[in-house]
């Protein structure tokens, strides 16, 4: 095989590689650009105002104690998420996750609507892996005991 053919073959391989890499990079970039979801606190969300209406975002914060309202029959869950300075009303369809409690950290995936409500499609609990003794108040044990007592009666 002549060196000319060899050289041309090499050039062809090089060009093909560049094209493949370029196309792949472009696809990756496009995919990332469209599918990156921003993580915002209530303060950041409200500061962005109309710019984040109807865009998928993740809202993170604490569930304001006492704000949880759940209609079991309609599977309609409403609560407030707060970062200490600002508060956002959240509405979610479906049952709250089992680990959902007042005052705990949550991440709500969904869209902020122009009526000022955050419509969540996916609720994630930020559960710490550090072990803590249950706080006084409604502990699982107490809940459990209530249930046992109520069922016996």
């Amino acid at each position, binding site marked *: 095989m002549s060196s000319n053919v060899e050289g041309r073959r090499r050039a062809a391989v090089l060009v093909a590689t560049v094209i*493949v890499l370029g196309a*792949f990079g472009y*696809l*990756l970039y496009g*995919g*990332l650009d*469209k*599918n*990156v*979801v*921003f*993580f*915002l606190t209530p303060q950041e969300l409200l500061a962005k105002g109309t710019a984040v209406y109807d865009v*998928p975002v*993740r809202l993170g914060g604490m569930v304001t104690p006492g704000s949880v309202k*759940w209609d*079991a*029959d309609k*599977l309609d869950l409403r609560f407030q998420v707060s970062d200490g300075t600002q508060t956002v009303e959240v509405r979610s369809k*479906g*049952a*709250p*996750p*089992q*680990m*959902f*409690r007042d005052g*705990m950290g949550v991440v709500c995936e969904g869209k902020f609507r122009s009526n000022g409500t955050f419509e969540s499609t996916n609720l994630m*609990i*930020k*559960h710490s*892996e*550090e*072990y*803590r*003794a*249950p*706080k006084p108040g409604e*502990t*699982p*044990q107490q*809940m*459990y005991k*209530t*249930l*046992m007592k*109520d*069922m016996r009666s």
Partner: protein
Amino acid sequence: MTRLIGYNALWVALATAVFGLVAIPLGVRRGRGGLIQASYAATFAMFWLTTAAVFAMIFGLVTHDFSIGYVAQVGSRATPLFYTIISLWGALEGSILFWAWVLTLLSALVVFWNRDREGALIPYTTMTMLAVSFFFFILLVGPANPFTLVSPTPLDGPGPNPLLQNHILMGVHPPLLYLGYVGMTVPFAFAIGAMASGEVEKDDWIKLSRRWTLGAWGFLSAAIIAGMWWSYEVLGWGGYWAWDPVENASFMPWLTATAFLHSVMVQERRGMLRLWNLNLIVSTFALTILGTFLTRSGVLSSVHAFGEGPIGAYFLVAIGITLIVSFAGVAGNSDALKSTGRLDGVASRETVFLLNNLLFTAFTFTVLIGTLFPIIAEAARGVKVSVGEPFFNKMTLPICASLLFLMGVGPALPWKRATKEDLKRQMIPPAVGAVIAAIVSIGFGARDVYAVLTFAFAAFALVANVREYASGVRARMRLRSETAVTALGKLVGANRRRYGGYVAHMGMVCVAVAIAASSTFRSEHEATLTKGASMPVGRFQVRLNQVYGREEVQRSRIAANVSIMQGGEEIGRLDPAMNFYPTSETPIPTPAVRSRPWGDIYVNLMAFKPDGSSATLKVIVEPLVPWIWFGGGIVCLGAIISMSTMPGRRRAPVWSAASVAAEGMTTPPLPTGATGLLATTSLEGAD
């Protein structure tokens, strides 16, 4: 006492590793066989010392010795014995200890099976294993020391993370993953050993490490499937894969290792891709360390991230050293790494392997970018972002579909060059299968283009791989007049690697079809039911019978008893529950699953009224899910068949009694002692 034994064993093990790291290069340079032999002995000693440390830890866990830091962190008197023992890998320090143990076991086995081999390859391979072990011992005596002293000694501990003691698969998934992850160190060590010893020209390192790579790959496959299963059975969302960073961390080395298993055949057959293969195996190892960094450093939050600590920096340094050493080795050996063969025809098995490797590499990059992007974005621009499932699905589904297709093309094409007749003869039957599968799936209501493609290409690959068997069996039956069964047995026996590979292909087809079907034909319904009421899901009805509570030793349990009804008749009962652990403020969901060959009915208890009068249930009907686990088993079976070839058989003379034992694989004394370890955790035995 136990604490001191464990801690000191780790220090001495560290010292043996250092000894080996010094003695091996000295021994090789000066031609002193005695030093090499001494380092081999040090490798065995390192294994036994780590074993002692693991024993001490298990003994401490079982005897509730809360003066040991790790026991105080994960132990509790109320935890059942099984979960107490497996909490060995339930948190950071213990998992690093277990990792080190597996690593020293593999190092000892590598030395044991290859110690009579001449040349510098095995010494340098051992040295690489020792260097990696050294790194883990540094972690164990430093930032991840499991044997810290707790004073005053607490009376009881919190017990393992509730999520990790809620399902038996926790006893299965982590050891499999460690064997797979750590197993990838062995081919990496052989690659480094080959480069350091200048033996990279001969492809011996590939032959010697082949079964190790296959074994590690099999364990990693099994671990990924077991992890999916665990997530499905425990986390309560009815899915098994979410492109979570920890899943990606285990998946990336699997992708590069799979690419390696294929491309290495091109090197053996055709003398091409030498450089590429070295890079693949180095990447695989680097990705295992990266995966450990991601899951253990606290940069990500997940069930695998055990809180923050300085350990992340150590892993970053390890990745850096790995890459620098490897690329220096590759650069220093560039002359020896030239291809000796070349591509003859476009339509050939080599081409398919090349495409396969391109796709696997692209796949790995996609997952890598998607996993690291949030970390990079936060570091570079201070914004918190997440890369969701849509990105991964959009990018990887076309790759998956193409890989399925190639899985059918590759086995059917000959090496070097396929003629037009070859193509016609080999491609038409699978293509017919693909068209039929596409039509059938559309008939069943599949509309998603990738779902239809998956079914079509799965059928294509299945037909092609089955035909490989069929034609081989037919040829044997004709030529040697064997029965179909003997012919099949002998066919596989004569070329286990090849036919084992086809078995793994069929397992993958099974997994692909089950994943596509369970996500395409899934139906889900969530509702609050009062006692006696029912709701429809797919072709079933689910009726709530009762909500009840039960006190167990280590936890309380609230469960709902539901009946699954079909056509007015009860076909089964399930008890989805929430488990309340004393250490957790919130309950752990415990879904109940009814598995049948056609698919699963998955019921999760979401909420309940404290008086027990009603409960909110989420019910998901997912077709074919059990076939994911079954297919995973077939993939592993394929790996086992492939690696069951004895490399020793073709080796020439047998020198000593020891190598006879190793060659015949008659249970050498070392692994027996090692595998029996975890089983013998009785108190007397460990004292």
